[in-house]
């Protein structure tokens, strides 16, 4: 039966199934063939939900929360059966259907002599980080944290490490919490490794096989993998909804082989990681300078009395209007952040009126607002990038990942709790990204300083000091 499969189909099957926990419907075999594989123990069934008298555990996502399990009535078996609600968007895991693990020969990933086709130049700081990453991978160290400020060019720092891994025939996963970032990374990585097959996996992606040597994935997609990768690179570690969804931490750990290397990238390590660094529990490399060699723009704070009252009435603070009209470089695009979705729309029309009256923009089509569940989100972001939009009013969704060359940034109501220290640092990091215009204005409009604001500014100044800039 199995012999009927051609070698190339068989090899494709191995790449697609090895290192994963799969539902029956995710295995591309018809019933007869699948049973033949089961008979030879090439696929091993494992129970999908572990039940003890006190607790249930989902074998795929590690969920243990009672509220994230539910029961449904099975008419054939005439009893209630449990299923996991936590990972249901990846296909339902139900107690009566096992997960399957590939138990046949392991996949053989190709060794690539010099796979990197990127020809750019790294700065000294980038080179140092890049070498540290490559060494960690080649010496199979368990973990490395790359602490690199916004705009330091961290994607390029990964290339040497990835190339080294490919030379050894290793399998690599680049995981990031945001789908926007997955989409942005795919063409960049593909260009840098133009002969290597790369797949991008995210909820709703066309590509679902997950069978390539390099995989770029949104974090939820990692839930299917088990000991699959020699290298897992976690982008934007601090943006991981780790605290909200503990199954993600579980999944990233599990996706890595026991001998594999975990690389964490972050611009703003959280307290937990900083403590680990202090105690030398986590190896790290620090990149305090931007790739273009200019310091990070330091945010200004601007006090606005009765800010909340004005926002409720749908108007913006006078200090903000003054700033809008007196910016040093009015060629720059404007990114304006607000704490809530409902405010973005209201304030966008206000700002339009002001900018129109001051003849800074000519047409209503040059300004728009965008938020997380906006169906037009992708299109609006690319319009802003193509400079067809001059002003974008947004919530924290644009705080990181997406890069625009020349913007000024304002946060209105920067004291709001959605703007924590990391978010403020990231938002400030949107300014001054290009070598042509390495500076940008960043202003926090607030009605009372918060710790987060003070800490964010202190953090940025410290980065600049460590980068050798004295201000």
């Amino acid at each position, binding site marked *: 039966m199995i012999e009927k499969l051609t070698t190339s189909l068989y090899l494709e099957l191995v790449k697609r199934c090895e290192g994963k926990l799969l539902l029956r419907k995710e295995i591309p075999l018809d019933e007869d063939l699948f049973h033949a594989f089961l008979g030879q123990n090439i696929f091993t069934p494992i129970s999908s939900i572990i039940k003890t008298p006190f607790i249930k555990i989902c074998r795929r996502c590690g969920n243990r929360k009672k509220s994230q399990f539910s029961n*449904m009535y099975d008419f054939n078996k005439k009893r209630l059966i449990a*299923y996991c*609600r936590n990972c249901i*968007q990846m296909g*339902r895991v139900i107690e009566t259907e096992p997960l399957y693990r590939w138990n046949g020969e392991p996949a053989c990933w190709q060794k690539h002599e010099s796979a990197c086709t990127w020809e750019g130049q790294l700065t000294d700081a980038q080179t140092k980080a890049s070498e540290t990453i490559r060494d960690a991978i080649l010496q199979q160290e368990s973990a490395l944290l790359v602490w690199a400020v916004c705009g330091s060019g961290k994607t390029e720092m990964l290339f040497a490490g990835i190339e080294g891994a490919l030379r050894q025939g290793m399998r690599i996963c680049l995981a990031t919490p945001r789908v926007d970032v997955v989409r942005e990374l795919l063409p960049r990585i593909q260009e840098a490794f133009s002969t290597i097959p790369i797949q991008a996996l995210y909820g709703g992606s066309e590509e679902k096989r997950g069978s390539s040597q390099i995989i770029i994935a949104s974090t939820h997609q990692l839930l299917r993998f088990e000991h699959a990768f020699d290298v897992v690179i976690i982008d934007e570690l601090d943006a991981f909804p780790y605290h909200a969804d503990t199954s993600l931490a579980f999944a990233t750990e599990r996706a890595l082989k026991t001998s594999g290397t975990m690389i964490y990238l972050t611009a703003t390590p959280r307290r937990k990681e900083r403590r680990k660094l202090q105690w030398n529990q986590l190896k790290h490399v620090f990149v305090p300078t931007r790739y273009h060699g200019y310091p990070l723009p330091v945010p200004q704070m601007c006090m606005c009395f009765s800010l909340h009252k004005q926002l409720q009435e749908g108007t913006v603070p006078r200090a903000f209007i003054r700033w809008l009209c007196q910016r040093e470089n009015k060629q720059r695009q404007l990114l304006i952040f607000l704490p809530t979705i409902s405010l973005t729309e209201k304030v966008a029309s206000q700002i339009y009126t002001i900018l129109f009256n001051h003849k800074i923009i000519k047409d209503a089509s040059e300004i728009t607002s965008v938020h997380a569940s906006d169906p037009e989100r992708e299109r609006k972001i690319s319009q802003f990038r193509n400079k067809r939009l001059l002003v974008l009013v947004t919530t924290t969704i644009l705080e990181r990942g997406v890069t625009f060359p020349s913007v000024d940034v304002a946060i209105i109501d920067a004291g709001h709790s959605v703007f924590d220290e990391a978010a403020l640092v990231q938002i400030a990091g949107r300014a001054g990204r290009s070598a042509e215009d390495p500076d940008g204005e960043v202003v926090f409009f607030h009605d009372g300083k918060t710790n987060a604001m003070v800490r964010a500014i202190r953090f940025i100044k410290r980065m600049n000091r460590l980068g050798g800039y004295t201000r």
Partner: protein
Amino acid sequence: MTCLLCEKNILPEVTWRTALYPEAKVICDACNELLVAIDGPRCTRCSRSSTKGNCLDCIHWEKTPSKDSLARNYSVYPYNNFMQEIITKWKYQGDYELGNVFKKTFRIHFKRMIKTTSKAYVAVPIPLSEERQEERGFNQAAMLAEFLPIPKANYLERIGSEKQAKKSKEERMKSANPFRLKKSLNKPVILVDDIYTTGMTLRHAARVLLEQGCPNVISFTLIRS
């Protein structure tokens, strides 16, 4: 308790009333506010928002030579993005539990409708094909029917699969009736389904029932799209 839709914690609000008659909330207030039932004037025959008594579609149905098999339809919610999201999770991803989000309101509206109807009705859910039922593990229409305080009869069954019905030409879909009755029913029937779109499916089911001696068929659906 955790909200079934957004997973936020639901803080139980303690008043004398809730202390005496605790009611288990399954969704939070914020989500509840987004779930708004159809209100205002509606077509008396199909529940679509309409100020003119009957909507154009229904006037068209009345004019067709063969008598309309479905006497009328009552729906609870209008269709919108939020509803679409819930339905996708519930039906297509198979999160059975989400059906309970609708339980209370579905019942309240049923009582509202039944006031003007005799109480001798039997609820008949629109069935899935065997194949679909197998794959999904539950029938959303049957789950909705279970919420209703009247007798249930799972007498309908589907011939072939939904997919085949989609593949064949539209013409054939109109003429071929995908339903069969396992047992005849001589009581008035309330068909139960999740969505009323054109009403074609419900009319097919109603026709089979009428042909085998059922005196009257109306439908009660969750959503009017």
